[in-house]
């Protein structure tokens, strides 16, 4: 079986303005949403209390909310999730209370609604820890991007390819963050882990395409750069799609079977994989072409120049 029985020859380069525009729109929408709506940060980053409670009968959300307010919790968020007997509670950070107090008051309030209520999961994160996790998540993003940029600069010899790869690498997490901002899906530590994995993984295709571009330039020095790029993308297209389909199979399995804990994580991966595939096919090579990439840049005729460009 093959996705493409014959070698494809899609004119990716000729149509690149369309793909640029599409990417630009998505990136702008993502950024605007991020800066206006922000992210629905989970308690990992804000501090606070998150609990899952199992009731013996259908939970009365309003009663739970009223009891929690009466117990002195401000703005309790109470939601039904899963079955009607399961509720999720989210409380904002309250620096005045110790974790033990929070727990006993929470349990007291719940027991007054339903004596058989059971706290299945309880996370209490101090505001201080929340801050630190936020800072370390930002550092993790920064370091990953930094090392990947370093790697790209070393690997691709010419800044034209490097720029293409870097923009593609930035493109994907921006879209993932945009999705989380627009849908207000809870953004927790696991999502950050997924975004880092996406940053690493999305570059994967770009690297394979660029690898092929180098190879093609070596054998066809005379061909027009646009033709070489088109050929390279088309020749690796089968592999690009195949790999992503297989990875998507497992991510979809995680999304539907992994439960609520892994939901945000798998969503981030799925969107990242789709965005990554798109950017490595439509964007990264096109940018290199618009920067004036020619065979000369990849394989300079004068050996000395090649040495100069090595780091």
């Amino acid at each position, binding site marked *: *079986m*093959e996705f493409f029985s014959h070698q494809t020859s899609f004119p990716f380069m000729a149509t690149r303005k369309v793909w640029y525009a599409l990417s630009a729109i998505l990136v702008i929408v993502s950024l605007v949403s991020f800066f206006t709506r922000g992210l629905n940060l989970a308690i990992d980053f804000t501090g606070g209390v998150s609990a899952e409670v199992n009731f013996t009968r259908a939970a009365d959300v309003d009663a739970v909310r009223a009891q929690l307010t009466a117990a002195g919790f401000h703005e309790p968020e109470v939601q039904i999730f899963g079955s009607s007997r399961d509720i999720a509670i989210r409380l904002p950070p309250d*620096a*005045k209370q*110790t*974790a*033990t107090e929070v727990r006993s008051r929470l349990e007291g309030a719940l027991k007054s609604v339903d004596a058989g209520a*059971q*706290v*299945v*999961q*309880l*996370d*209490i*994160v*101090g*505001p*201080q*820890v929340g801050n630190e996790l936020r800072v370390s998540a930002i*550092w*993790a993003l920064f*370091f*990953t991007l930094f*090392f990947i940029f370093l*790697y790209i600069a070393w*690997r691709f010899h010419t800044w034209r390819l490097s720029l293409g790869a870097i923009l593609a690498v930035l493109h994907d997490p921006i879209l993932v963050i945009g999705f989380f901002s627009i849908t207000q899906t809870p953004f927790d*530590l696991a999502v*950050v*882990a997924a975004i*880092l*994995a996406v*940053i*690493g*993984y999305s*570059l*994967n*295709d770009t*690297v*394979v395409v660029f*690898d092929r571009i180098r190879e093609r330039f070596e054998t066809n020095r005379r061909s027009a750069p646009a033709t070489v790029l088109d050929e390279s993308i088309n*020749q690796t297209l089968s*592999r690009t799609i*195949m*790999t992503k*389909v*297989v*990875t*998507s*199979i*497992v*991510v979809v*399995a*995680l999304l*539907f*079977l*992994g*439960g609520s*804990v*892994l939901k945000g994580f*798998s969503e981030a991966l799925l969107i990242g994989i789709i965005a990554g595939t798109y950017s490595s096919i439509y964007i990264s090579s096109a940018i290199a072409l618009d920067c004036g990439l020619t065979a000369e840049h990849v394989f300079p005729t004068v050996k000395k120049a090649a040495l100069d460009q090595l780091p």
Partner: protein
Amino acid sequence: MLQYARWKYILVAVVLLLALLFALPNFFGEDPALQVARKDHSAVTTDAAKELEAFLKERSLHTGQSYIDSGRLMVRFASVADQLAARDAVNEKYAGTYITALSFAPRTPEFLRALGLRPMPLGLDLRGGLYLLYQVDVNAAVAQALEGYAQDARRALAAAKIPVKDLSTVALEGDGRPNAVRVVLAPEADAGAARTALGQALQGLTISTDTLPSGATITGLMTTAQIRERQDYAIQQNITTLRNRVNELGVSEPIVQRQGIDRINVQLPGVQNSAEVKDILGRVATLEFRLEDMQNNALEAAQTGRAPLGSKLYMHTRFGRPVLLKREVIATGDQLTNATSGQSQEGPAVNIKLDARAGEAMLKTTQANLNKRMAVVLIEKRRETTEVDGKKVTRDVTDEEVINDATIRGVFSNQFQITGLGASEARELALLLRSGSLATGIYSIEERAVGPSLGRENIQKGVTALIVGMAGVFLFMAIYYRTFGLVADLVLLANVVLLTALLSMMRASLSLPGIAGIILTVGMAVDANVLIYERIREEIRKGVTPQAAIRAGFEKALSAITDSNITTLIAGVVLWVLGTGPIKGFAIVLTLGIITSMFTALMGSRALLTLMYGGRRKIARLSIG
């Protein structure tokens, strides 16, 4: 012609066999079990184990094979119901001798266990349990040490009769935390003699002499290294105390470890009643024994809010009425040598033993104050954060509660009983006192609890997603690449085994994100195979012979495979270094998975394909879809 060096075959075979051996313990599952440890921390003997087993048989509980692991007896049960019944039975009969903990015993066969092979430990999100992160107040430890130096200095100068204008701890660095002891001498003092006198008291500190406008000063500075050492000591002491308390709780496989500079993380698998546990772990508790002020009326004092001279008013008491206590402390918690809970004629009691000095003080007091009342004050420290002008201000709060107030019935010295408590209260108080008060304040700053049913659900979900995801990938590869696809499937399976083996060897605990990492590795590891197979297809299209196509496929795909894996590796390593908890688990799996997948895809599949298509045989076409 297609060939592969013999040593490479051997390497692949040896690695995979070892991997299979190390991964094996993970496939046997677990039995509900009861961990029985001796209260005095000595090892359970085989005779004692036999006696316990006989006792359980007598109660017609179905025990499986039991074994002793690092001094603790593990008894298996056929069902959770039997496990719970056995715990209650043992607790009832052997309350003074053993501590029990509910646990799981891996069903690993004896010969594997003898080789030291164990399954991956499960993280708290999969087993259920309690995770706590404590902040240790290390600066208080440093301040305490300095205060000690200051006291010694004061004593030394007084002994040498050297007049002092001022003696205090000061902050000589920008951060405002005291790091030195400064003595300002009175004008008539002899600086040389003062320095000699201080030499002994401030030993270890860096001493400098100076003349400031306020007078001649002598400064003892604690170096950064000394401060660090003092902080480390405080953390170590707290870890030891926490370990003791955790052991007293009877939790199986607890983890108490340092995290960062001033944090301790505690993981208690299987613990459900987190409120009680946290209460016991987090308390910085000490006791004070004081006489009650019987001349004055406590209620009156409570109304005016003013205590008579020489007394202190306690509003917060266990018995609901305010009480006036004498200011003099007879004995304190750190003079306590043992505390056990037991029974007295008046119900549950805590038996207390004091050291010699406190015993002496107690003897004098009780002799002079027979039939008067003595109270026990429990002093607990906790941290409170409030918002002042939009800024978070943290301060330490000391709660003092009079937990007991009893008539002195007889003259006693270093051994006596506190009565008037509930049974569980007595047990808790004894435990709290016995495990020693923490060196410096610790405060819980993060708590995560997962119920056991949720843990089981998480495992189930993770395993289901793993099986379905893998099955999907296997099927897809087989359809898309035919025989080559099946080869890839075998290689993927080998990859999962290798990854499991590595994780088991590292004893890295498996969390739900870790399982997600394994699933993701399966999805990503396919990439290397796909790159190779697509290359082989291309070569075949060019009209190359099958065997040459295989060789060219492997050779030409190599650079793309290494390149594309390196970027994911970068992300994995960063996450490994910066992440904590389950996220670190995910990063470990992701990083190791990339390495194992490169090994299996490049070496494993090459070995297999060479076995299938190698040699001088003529092959008409490859079954590669």
